[in-house]
């Protein structure tokens, strides 16, 4: 019996209908094609970083101090080739960027996944059950939304840094920044999911599932949740863009990832000190890569939001 209602028919049809307009919208927009190509390239680069980079830029043994400050496209000692130049410690800028990009994307993806794991269940329960839990959660969300995300993240960062003893602060920096960004962003998911659940729970398929005595968790997880995938996907895409920008900003400010495990933001922070002494490549190339990353993620996110919005189709 339950198998019949397992995959509610309206939901399936809804997906299939929105499937082809999305493809058509993709074929129409040149901008989003370019942006997703750039994004694909970046994802490949992060996955293949250890093989693409000829040097592990954060293993000080492999650095060649004699090659320090070599300009882009020049050859150093031992036949090493610096396509994007070398920094003050003889580190290959191209290799540093590949590893930095990896950190930026890693932090962004993990933060999005974590805030998804916090926000979606809370939103589901709040929207379905209502009552005091809903009220409490939404008041909390109101208070948090009063402040910009970056400020909340910075505050969480400040608190965690205070709790963690000084010696291990650098080792847990990645976890801390993921936590800070996720905790400042989960509200978006919770609010959207709650609103959507309140609409969905009035529908016939939920009433039918209640009638045949499906448990609450089954109704939420197996019947309602699949119908919310589109809005969740849109928020995830947009909040991925926010997470990338937030991480790079925090790292640039010197409270994010340390120079021993730099992200693009950390590299830019380091590079800025060479801006006036003429070694422009240490700053310029990480900035350009961050620019490409932020822009392509934003464009794809915005496009996805419009493409999945039934009102705009």
């Amino acid at each position, binding site marked *: 019996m339950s198998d019949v209602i397992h995959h509610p028919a309206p939901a399936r049809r809804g997906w299939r209908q929105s499937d082809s307009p999305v493809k058509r919208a993709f074929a129409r927009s040149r901008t989003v094609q370019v942006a997703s190509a750039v994004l694909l390239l970046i994802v490949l680069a992060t996955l293949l970083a250890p093989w693409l980079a000829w040097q592990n830029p954060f293993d000080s043994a492999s650095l060649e101090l004699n090659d320090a400050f070599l300009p882009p496209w020049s050859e150093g000692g031992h036949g090493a080739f610096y396509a994007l130049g070398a920094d003050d410690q003889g580190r290959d800028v191209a290799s540093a960027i590949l590893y930095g990009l990896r950190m930026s994307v890693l932090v962004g993806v993990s933060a999005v996944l974590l805030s998804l794991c916090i926000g979606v269940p809370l939103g589901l329960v709040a929207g379905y059950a209502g009552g005091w839990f809903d009220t409490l959660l939404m008041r909390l969300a*109101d208070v948090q939304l009063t402040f910009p995300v970056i400020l909340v993240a*910075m505050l969480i960062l*400040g608190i965690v840094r205070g709790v963690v003893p000084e010696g291990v602060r650098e080792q847990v920096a990645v976890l801390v920044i993921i936590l800070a960004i996720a905790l400042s962003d989960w509200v978006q998911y919770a609010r959207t999911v709650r609103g959507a659940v309140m609409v969905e729970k009035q529908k016939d398929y939920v009433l039918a599932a209640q009638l045949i005595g499906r448990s609450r968790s089954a109704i939420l997880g197996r019947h309602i949740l699949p119908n919310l995938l589109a809005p969740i996907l849109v928020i995830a895409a947009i909040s991925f863009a926010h997470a990338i*920008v937030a991480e790079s900003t925090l790292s640039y400010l010197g409270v994010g990832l340390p120079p021993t495990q730099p992200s693009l933001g950390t590299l830019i922070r380091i590079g800025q000190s060479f801006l006036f002494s003429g070694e422009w490549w240490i700053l310029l190339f990480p900035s350009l890569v961050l620019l490409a990353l932020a822009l392509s993620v934003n464009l794809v996110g915005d496009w996805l939001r419009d493409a999945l919005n039934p009102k705009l189709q």
Partner: protein
Amino acid sequence: MLAYLLRRLGQSALVLVAVSLIAFMVFRHIGDPTISLLGEDATLEERAALNSELGFDKPVPLQYLNYVGKVVQGDLGISYRLKRPVSEVITERLPATLELALIASLGALGIGVVLGVYTALRSEGWLSRWVMTVSLVGVSLPTFLIGIGLIYLFAVELRWLPSFGRGTTVKVGGWETGLLTASGWSAIILPAITLGFYNMTLIMRLVRAEMLEVLRSDYIRFGRARGLREKDLYFGHALRNTLIPVITIAGLQIGTLIAFSIVTETVFQWPGVGLLFISSIQGVDVPLIAAYLMFIALLYVVINLLVDFLYLAVDPRLRRR
């Protein structure tokens, strides 16, 4: 209407209580003030004396009330790093941040309205399209990248403007201002552009959207039919009706502006409260972190309330509810 205002006041109070609780917990439970203030090698007696002086030997709820009582009186504790009263340090740094935020928001408002009107009136022109594209690109970039780009162009390559600091400042009363000297003005230009850019695009898009809508309405068509001059029509009739939401948004954004000044102040080494906050996070200067938190919360609440009142004052329809 009274109910609406009371509800908003209640919400504001809730925000303040929540934030003061967080600030208290940060202040009380993170780090050991006896080590931070007295150093590692203070004796146990000295520590106990300081503990009782700070009131840390009393029950926790009483400590919270004491903390709030002190905060209300302007006593925010002593900075671990600077060994000076927090309220003194913040008042010293505040003028720099407020001047930056003021110039940035005025600039964003002025330029945003002008560009918004222009892109609405000439929505098909090449300049409008160009402005819209630049604003789209700018919005998705991290603020600090825009700041670095400006420094590179105007301070390193062209050498027109300074890249850091406030320039020469003058003391007027207790207020240290950079707005009375030429070097102060040239120092504020780049940070203000960096800080105001996002708001400028926001205001521009808002004005553009509202203008496009208003220009389609009947009263504009009738005005044109009556033979009013285009200039009067656009600026006297259309623009005026778009300004109410613009004022609201611009007002609400002041809080965001102050928060984002943390980034801008770091890029330009601008000696304001934002830079102070970042260095307190780096140095785990707990009393300063807690104080900044309270300060921002208060600012937000006050601005939100002011905007609510402004709304009531501007839009008579709201008053009848």
